[in-house]
């Protein structure tokens, strides 16, 4: 089951959900409409799952920045969100999709216990200008079935992400850099 907008507001008021900064105007019928953060990392080299990804980092100017097809961008949500009670799904919204922008590259799940600024994997179908703090997507909250096992207790990789994280898959691969 998916929380409604008023359900999200109530769960935040009772402390079950963290959304910071929080703007009630960003609640939609069954999601919270999150914003793109100021920073992008640009990955335009050949990549290896066993090696840390090289990147350059840039701040999105107020005049915006043009995303190019064929390049991997790592962005970040302006908001820090989390819940020990609910799982989360992060997606782009229809407006962003209709501009040919993929957000999240097939990994939308936020585990129970996540409390993060989400790293966003962004890809453009054609050149498109994006702007800092623009509304970029939807975050939904899901009821869970079973005993919870918080991400915070799992010893997992991205427990306290404050900004953009490159992939740390290389830590898992034999022969990879640790």
């Amino acid at each position, binding site marked *: 089951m998916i929380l409604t907008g008023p359900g999200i507001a109530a769960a935040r008021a009772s402390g079950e959900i963290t959304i910071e900064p929080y703007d009630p105007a960003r609640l939609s019928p069954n999601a919270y409409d999150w914003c793109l953060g100021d920073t992008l990392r640009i990955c335009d080299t050949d990549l290896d799952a066993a090696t840390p990804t090289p990147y350059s980092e840039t701040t999105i100017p107020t005049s915006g920045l043009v995303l190019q097809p064929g390049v991997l961008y790592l962005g970040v949500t302006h908001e820090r969100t989390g819940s020990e009670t609910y799982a989360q799904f992060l997606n782009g919204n229809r407006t962003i999709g209709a501009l040919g922008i993929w957000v999240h590259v097939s*990994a939308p799940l936020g585990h129970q216990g996540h409390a993060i600024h989400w790293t966003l994997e962004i890809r453009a179908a054609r050149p498109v200008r994006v702007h800092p703090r623009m509304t970029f997507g939807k975050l939904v909250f899901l009821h869970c*079935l079973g005993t919870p096992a918080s991400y915070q207790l*799992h010893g*997992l990789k991205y427990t306290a992400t404050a900004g953009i994280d490159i992939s740390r898959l290389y830590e*898992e691969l034999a022969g990879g850099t640790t």
Partner: protein
Amino acid sequence: MILTGPEITAAAQDGRLRITPFAPDQVNPNSYNVRLGPTVLTYTADVLDAHQPNPTREFTIGPDGYVLQPGELYLGHTIEEVGSDTFVPLLFGRSSVGRLGLFVEITAPIGDIGFHGQWTLMLTPIRPLRVYAGMRIGQIMFFASVGTIALYRGKYQAAGGPQPSRYWRDVTKLRAVAS
């Protein structure tokens, strides 16, 4: 409702879902990590035809990995056989894999209740990316369902290894019905 990690483990033990092989260290708070199998298919024709079987080339990912190229579609598979007669499975990439610019499914994350087998992965990278057999590439989550259950009886049942599109088989049936 989405299952928690402890509930996935309990359901794997009592048979409400099946993950083979099952390893406790692949359980996440709300999903199970699946690994990339060694066999990969690419289509060999320049233009795919949804109404025809499309020829494929099969290769094996060696110990040094394999570089996936942008613009190509690779059909991979999970090592694990995963399915449930109770819950709805959803397959997604892992964030660590998304951050490498790799899509592991295309527009079809939702599985069917009653499908059991290795899951085909539809691999498309944004940048050239070296991948390795056995890497934890995706995650499967399970949702509780509402209503009477009618188990999957489709054309990909008990899949072993990557499966190319079999839409053509449905077309053949439609033509048989129409004639």
